[in-house]
């Protein structure tokens, strides 16, 4: 099949709402959104706490978390695989090669990004707000809700960055999901598989959706920053 015909078929898959195609897109979004939500629930308070607290070894923790932002997805996948495999410490959960395992792996990838960006944002705000909040009798951990709320637009950008990383990665979900048709096959793993098989239309269609998603994420991040400037100053 030539490239023109492949593109034409790819658009037919997108516009024709092909159930198999939509299933893959839907699973990818479900896994990634759940992972980002979990990372936000854990990472936002943890990053904020790291920003306002002082303890021995804090700098080391910050360096480790910053380093983990560049964690190779295949390594994250391998770690989760070892944890969830039958002989691993969490083997009894029985979730290896399920979407749950993929969520865990992607959460592991997104979490350092959320923690590090939250810490940076909140630390800057804390420097600015510290005396005022202390004057009101609010210090340390009690300041976290105020700081998280006032950093909301910058933090939204951080979460979108995490979403971008998770939605585009292939290594981790491939290892822990197993790329099982109609069950754990995501956009990225399908693109890798179908390209190797020479089935370009499906790979191209999913590639177009992924690209559109990337542009959408960047648009949202830009919008969040503009809204922040307009409504929060």
């Amino acid at each position, binding site marked *: 099949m030539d490239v023109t015909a492949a593109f034409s078929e790819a658009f037919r898959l997108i516009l024709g709402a092909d159930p198999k195609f939509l299933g893959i897109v839907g699973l990818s979004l479900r896994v990634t959104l759940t992972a980002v939500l979990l990372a936000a629930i854990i990472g936002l308070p943890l990053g904020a706490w790291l920003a306002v607290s002082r303890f021995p070894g804090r700098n080391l923790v910050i360096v480790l978390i910053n380093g983990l932002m560049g964690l190779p997805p295949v390594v994250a996948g391998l770690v989760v695989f070892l944890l969830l495999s039958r002989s691993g410490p969490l083997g009894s959960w029985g979730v290896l090669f399920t979407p749950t395992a993929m969520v865990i792996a992607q959460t592991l990838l997104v979490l350092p990004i959320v923690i590090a960006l939250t810490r940076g944002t909140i630390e800057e705000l804390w420097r600015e707000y510290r005396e005022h909040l202390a004057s*009101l*009798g609010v210090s340390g951990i009690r300041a976290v809700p105020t700081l998280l709320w*006032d950093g909301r637009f910058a933090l939204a950008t951080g979460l979108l960055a995490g979403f971008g990383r998770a939605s585009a990665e292939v290594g981790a979900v491939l290892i822990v999901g197993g790329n099982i048709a109609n069950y754990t096959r995501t956009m990225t793993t399908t693109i890798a598989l179908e390209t190797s098989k020479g089935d370009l239309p499906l790979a191209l269609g999913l590639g177009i959706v992924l690209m559109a998603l990337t542009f959408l994420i960047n648009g949202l991040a830009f919008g969040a920053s503009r809204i922040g400037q*307009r409504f929060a*100053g």
Partner: protein
Amino acid sequence: MRDIASILPLRVDSLAFEADGKSLLGPVSFDLPKGGITAIIGPNGAGKSLLLRLCHGLLVPTRGRVNWAVEGGLIAGRKRHAMVFQRPVMLRRSARANLQHAAMVTGAGRSVEDALEGFGLTHLAERPARLLSGGEQQRLALARAWLLEPDVLFLDEPSSQLDPGATRQIEAILERLAAEGVTLLMTTHDFGQARRLARRVLFLHRGQLVEDADATSFFAQPRTEEARSFLAGDLLW
């Protein structure tokens, strides 16, 4: 006789602050009775802002004590002294939300709407606080402090970054607060402002309280050489 509903008088007793082994303030002692405006003046680095922060509890003194008539300057569990900073800290929210935040975290008794109205901010209530002008931000900072029902208000150069029009508005507010019974302790670089507002002057130089005098006599006949030189415009360091 002391007013039992007040945290005053404030007794500053041999207060000293050091950083990295270097003395930055003190020992300084003075009393602040209820009422009026007291100006702390002195050259840069004299320790004026540091003294305010120590009194307000933002810093812990190396030596000495800040004694309120009521332990901790608290009445019914609420801190009854507030502070307005040279550069007002505005949360990334509307003017109204800035006041609501202060009211919420302190359990302040006064109403946000009264604060907006009393400080001429009603028409700016929904505007992002950080986008207000310098004068409007400082009015909002004063409204936020007023919300807390302070007996004492510490002000660190409250109009140093404002134009004359905005400075006049701020001074009018400070006089009104003093007339309402709030005791003001403020730092200023502006002799004119100290003359216009203050009943009493504390003159600091190199971390020492060099002169503590009635404002009229301080400006007419300063007792110390340092104060005379400072008022004459000589460069002190």
